[in-house]
């Protein structure tokens, strides 16, 4: 590093993060795990049981699905807001952000009131004669996905909105002047330029989804247990802190790996000449 003073300026911040974040988490995780018991086959069985596998795999599946849906929706909304909404721009943005500022519990219970069998949506559809049976949108994986998408959408929208807002409009005009229609402009000009932001948002959503607890607990009917809740049960109910530590460590390492990959990817993207996220 050529800029020595800058390193010293960073030092307090680094020390703070080390002292109050890295060290305590490290001490807890590594201290809670009883490393000597890991050789015991009974303990190994408990840690690698079918259920643990299922919980992790359900978490990965749901996180992946939700991240894809959220990213697509956020891209669509951000594009619409910035290029088509005109006067409605602020209103739409505010509406989406408003839900972000509500408590997660309020939102989850609000969705429950709307989606349950005799809730708003089903009652409406039944009364209109469009359905014979209420839709099972709650207390199952569908409910969990709806709840998580609802929660993640505003969070994903903000960076994408920034990316689209800062978009160089002259690029679009150049494309149009060469005869490109809207969809071609979108596909060949707009998306490639914002793609680092899109990938970044996708990865961020994925990581956040991995840690979801409240929303799946409320909307899943208690039967779609994701890894965060599973760890919590190990800590609170079973007082099996070593297991909890192991699962937490695995989750943390997985996320760290993802970050490493995303950093590497964004560096690649920057070198290719796209706009950094």
């Amino acid at each position, binding site marked *: 590093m050529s800029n020595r003073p800058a390193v010293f300026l960073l030092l307090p911040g680094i020390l703070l993060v080390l002292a109050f974040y890295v060290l305590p988490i490290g001490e807890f995780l590594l201290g809670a795990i009883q490393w000597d018991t890991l050789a015991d086959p009974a303990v190994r069985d408990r840690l690698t049981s079918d259920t643990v596998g299922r*919980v992790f795999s359900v978490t990965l599946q749901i996180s992946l699905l939700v991240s894809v849906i959220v990213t697509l929706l956020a891209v669509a909304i951000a594009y619409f807001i910035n290029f088509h909404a005109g006067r409605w721009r602020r209103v739409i943005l505010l509406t989406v952000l408003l839900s972000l500022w509500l408590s997660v519990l309020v939102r989850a219970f609000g969705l429950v009131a709307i989606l349950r069998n005799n809730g708003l949506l089903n009652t409406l559809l039944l009364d209109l004669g469009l359905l014979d049976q209420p839709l099972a949108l709650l207390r199952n994986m569908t409910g969990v996905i709806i709840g998580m998408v609802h929660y993640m959408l505003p969070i994903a929208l903000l960076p994408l909105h920034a990316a689209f807002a800062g978009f160089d409009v002259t690029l679009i005009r150049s494309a149009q002047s060469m005869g490109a229609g809207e969809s071609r402009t979108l596909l060949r000009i707009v998306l490639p330029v914002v793609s680092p932001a899109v990938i970044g948002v996708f990865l961020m959503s994925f990581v956040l989804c991995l840690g979801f607890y409240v929303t799946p607990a409320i909307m899943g009917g*208690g039967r779609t247990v994701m890894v965060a809740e599973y760890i919590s049960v190990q800590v609170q109910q079973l007082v099996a802190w070593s297991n909890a530590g192991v699962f937490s460590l695995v989750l943390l390492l997985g996320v760290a790996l993802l970050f490493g990959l995303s950093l590497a990817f964004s560096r690649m993207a920057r070198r290719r000449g796209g706009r950094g996220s």
Partner: protein
Amino acid sequence: MKSSVLRDAIEVARRRVALGTVDRRQFLAALGARGAAGALASLGGGKAEAAAKEIVFSMWGGGVGETAYAEAWGAPYTAETGIPVVITGDGPTGGKIRSQVETNSVIWDVCDQGIAAGGLAKAGLLRDLDYGVIDRDRALPEFTSDWGVTGYVFSSVLAFDRKALGDKVPSTWADFWDVEQFPGKRTLWKYMEGTLEAALLADGVAPEDLYPLDIDRAVAKIAALKDHLILWETAAESEQLLRDGEVTMGQIWNTRAQLLREETGGQLDYSFNQAVSQPGIWIVPKGNPAGDEVMPFIASMADPERQLLVLQTLGNGPANPETEALYTPELAAVSPSSSENMKLQVKVSPAWYADNYDEAFGKFFDAVAS
């Protein structure tokens, strides 16, 4: 772990105040008297405060539960002995107790726990109670042990929706599992207590033969019901599921079932038949701040009138057999520990859960969670 038996009881009492069946003045007076103590408790009484002569009693629930406990057990003891009793509704989970004892920073003298505390005892985290001071005969013996005396009783009962089920009234757990005769979804507690016994009874095991529980059989039976099952986490949720008609039957706590019955005039009803009777147990973590001073306090909580008061305000069944003589017919009908209701129920075995809770809960959670 019963995360909300008492927190739920609070809501019960608050609702009763609203319904007019409990005197508001009692509550307000108790609140006023406790004002100072409450403020102290909410500051998170550290070791310094607790070292001064006072008893800190940790239970499940906020305001109303604390008030009810303070009125029934705290205030009379303070009046007799001059020692202040601080009731705090922060919820003494096993994890919290363990971390306090292991780091030598215990702030609670007596905790309201359940059968899951057997694991804490096995891990050496609890004090043996002083039965020279505490009268062991004044608490139900089935739930009392060296490390914990029965404080109160609650039941997991079969609650059902008369309107949804029509003239078919379920009365046994076999009915609960019978989705043909009794259509609709069911709800069970996410944290297992009460469900294994119900499952085995539904599967044809005689009440006398329940213990030691066949965990695999019980879990398989519950797993068979999975498609029709919603798990409730908090007591309020258990009520709401029945109220909203999302489920037609549920195994819920008697305190909430009684509330539902009062609220809906019997449309949502319940029965003590085959209900699973469980204890709230008073335990003392090792290294508690007040030391031996806590034992006379625990002994004082066995007083029948005080226990009856808690039954009236919160719905918890008295643990002292002497209360039997004080029941009115109405109270006896709704008390989970009155002799007429105890005859209908099965009792959990704290000794069995002390040895097997972890394995049972692990298997239960694994079966329902995925």
